[in-house]
């Protein structure tokens, strides 16, 4: 087994395990912690895909900010104790069935293989890959379509910030 494949499995198996633990834990805080672990592993996966910048952003934003927010709210609302908050009976079975159905679709149609025959990546693009410089140049290249979504994302963030304040503030 080549080292790359070995690393892939070393990351993938814990990732799936963490994801499963997220949805099976009774305790939301446990779920959150497993999700953090999941995200750190995903950052590692990004690194193995030579997307260093995105990996770093994943750690900073997801693991460092978003998940801290989650944990903060869980503690703020004091939801730590295991509460019986899972669907029971038919609803639970239905959810699982949907998930399995989706998985069956993915696997059965083999769609993940379609259209992958011609990889265009070369050693050059791979090496250029995910440096902040490469991503930045692509992001702000007027010939590429990313500039507008980038600006829109900033507006979305602004609206989210304002909205969160309006929603959470008791008295404005």
């Amino acid at each position, binding site marked *: 087994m*080549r080292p790359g494949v070995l690393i892939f499995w070393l990351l993938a198996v814990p990732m799936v395990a963490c994801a499963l633990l*997220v949805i099976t834990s009774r305790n939301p805080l446990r779920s*959150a912690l497993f999700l953090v672990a999941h995200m750190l592993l995903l950052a590692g996966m990004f690194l193995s895909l030579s*997307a260093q910048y995105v990996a770093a952003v994943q750690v900073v934003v*997801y693991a460092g900010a978003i998940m801290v927010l989650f944990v903060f709210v869980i503690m703020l609302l004091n939801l730590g104790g295991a509460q019986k908050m899972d669907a029971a009976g038919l609803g639970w079975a239905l959810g*699982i069935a*949907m998930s399995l159905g989706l998985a069956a679709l993915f696997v059965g149609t083999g769609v993940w293989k379609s259209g992958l025959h011609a990889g265009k*990546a070369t050693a050059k693009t791979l090496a250029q890959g995910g440096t902040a410089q490469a991503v930045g140049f692509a*992001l702000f290249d007027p010939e590429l379509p990313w500039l507008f979504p980038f600006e829109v994302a900033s507006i979305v963030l602004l609206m989210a910030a304002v*909205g969160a304040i309006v929603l959470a503030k008791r008295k404005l």
Partner: protein
Amino acid sequence: MSFAVPTEHYLLLSAVLFCIGVAGVATKRNPIVVFMCIEIMLNAANLGFVALGRHFGDVGGQIYTMLIIAVAAGEVAIGLAIIVSLFRTRETIDLDEADLLKL
């Protein structure tokens, strides 16, 4: 050009994670956990984007991922604010208790 790890591996992993997220969204009653499951789904999509970006030698996949992360940050801010205010008014965040939309 062959890679050490075939892109299909990543896509399959992404699909599996996505299905796990779907299962969580469909079965959980705690909105915070539902949120986390949505994050799992988003992350699965991110993984697919980055893997395909590498496969096609296009940095766009990574930019997509960053945009998703930005939007997810906003979504979490709003969603958690909603949950906090929900808790304030109803003293619980059980999704099945929040049924005012019912006729």
